[in-house]
């Protein structure tokens, strides 16, 4: 392995890290902070991807001159649509199940099946084509032998911005303070005058909206179809669980570790063996640290 390859593999690891982080941030909030096992997280990402698709079609037809900007509108729309859907889902279904976390697994799994079938019926049973904007085509040629795909650079930037915003929201605003208070001790937070049901709904909507952002930006890398969500959901859960539920920092850290492992294992082994090795390592770590790498102490 020469220096060029080293640089490109390091970049690959970084890229997988940011992809996993984007996928897992929303679930870390929904599953980690709220304890809802949201099996429909992948389908929410697919919903975000379809928002990108719809925006692309709209721009193609009505303002082809601004096609280069559609990606931002697509991401924004994805956030709005999925968080709105998340809000309705919380109000209509999830809030009745807070006392029964295992049942949220079944209920949201049902939601994911319904959503998949809706995509099939209403949009297309096949994958749809979401065009990549022209300014993200190709790669940045750093040196002669080293090049970094622009779409991945964009996702790295997006992930950093999103993670920073989530951090600021949770740790630097009144609203974030309320979310953390409700997570740590629901009864006491309620006694202190926090409207816990409202906080729950908004938190869930935020988590879903983040899934939308992730799904929308991943249209540049992967397919957009009814089963798209299934491609993401396993990795997302592994990242959150491995990092330690209830810890956002843990999620980011575990995304980094898994991303690097995937990059280097896939380089030195075959793809399937790399996958198996990563899962094996995750199992071993979880055996010795059942609460994940970063187990936060939470009073229930």
């Amino acid at each position, binding site marked *: 392995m020469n220096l060029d*390859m080293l640089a*490109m*593999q390091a970049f*690959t690891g970084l*890229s*997988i890290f940011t*992809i996993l982080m984007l996928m897992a941030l929303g679930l870390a909030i929904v599953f980690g902070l709220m304890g809802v096992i949201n099996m429909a997280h992948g389908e929410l990402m697919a919903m975000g991807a379809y928002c990108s698709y719809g925006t692309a079609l709209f721009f193609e037809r009505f303002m082809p001159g601004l096609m280069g900007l559609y990606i931002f509108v697509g991401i924004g729309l994805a956030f709005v649509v999925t968080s709105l859907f998340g809000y309705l889902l919380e109000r209509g279904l999830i809030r009745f199940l807070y006392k029964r976390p295992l049942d949220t697994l079944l209920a949201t799994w049902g939601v994911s099946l319904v959503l998949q079938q809706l995509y099939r019926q209403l949009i297309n049973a*096949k*994958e*749809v*084509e*979401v*065009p*990549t904007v022209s300014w993200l*085509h*190709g*790669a940045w040629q750093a040196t002669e032998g080293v*090049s970094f*795909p*622009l*779409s*991945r650079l964009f996702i790295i930037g997006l992930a950093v911005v999103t993670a920073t915003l989530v951090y600021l929201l949770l740790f630097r605003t009144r609203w974030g303070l309320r979310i953390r208070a409700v997570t740590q001790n629901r009864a006491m937070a309620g006694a202190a005058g926090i409207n816990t049901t409202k906080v729950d709904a908004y938190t869930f909507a935020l988590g879903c909206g983040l899934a939308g952002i992730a799904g929308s930006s991943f249209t*540049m*890398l*992967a*397919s*957009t*179809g009814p*089963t*798209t969500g*299934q*491609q993401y959901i396993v990795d997302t859960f592994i990242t959150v669980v491995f990092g330690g539920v209830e810890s956002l920092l843990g999620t980011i850290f575990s995304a980094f570790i898994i991303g690097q492992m*995937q*990059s280097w294992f*896939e*380089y030195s082994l*075959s*793809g*399937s063996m*790399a*996958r198996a090795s990563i899962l094996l390592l995750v199992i071993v770590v979880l055996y010795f640290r059942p609460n994940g790498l970063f187990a936060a102490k939470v009073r229930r």
Partner: protein
Amino acid sequence: MGEGYYPLGHIEFSSEINKIKAAKPDVILNCVVGGSNVAFFKQLTAAGINGSNQTLLSLAVSEEEVSGIGAENTVGTLTCMGYFQSLKNPANEKFVKAFKAKYGANRVLGDTLECGYISVYLWKLAAEKAKSFDVEKVVAASSDLPIDAPEGHVHFDKSNHHLWKHARIGTFLPDGQVNMIYESPLLAPNPFPKL
């Protein structure tokens, strides 16, 4: 030069693409199936590998898949299939016209769809020849049975009842259709190949 195997549904190919870049192969033989193809082609194109600078032959990418991958990501690459929408023969022209009249002008046809279509007609022919719906009799009647399919004149094998078909290789065009560059004679079906 090298082989890489990935789990079904894999969507992260950048390590493999880095390996491909390092190996500079004469040809990439792409056996990826389904949604993973979208990821593979998009990431190849983003990494600067495309039909204009790399020979790539896909075994499971038809015109239908291209509608999900995006024609700009597949243009210039090769595909191997038994049927292309662009085949020029009267049966196919009629088939494409009828399909588009029913399902819309934007829909494309691919090998899988054509196979599903002729399967029903093959069964009809065999059932008519057997003058029965009995499975045993229909199977017996299907030996050597020919059909004028959109993919050309094909027929059942005498013993194993798979189809004798043409293998065709073509290049993807910017509109997602295929320009056929090679057509084999009818090939004997061999469902149980020996190493």
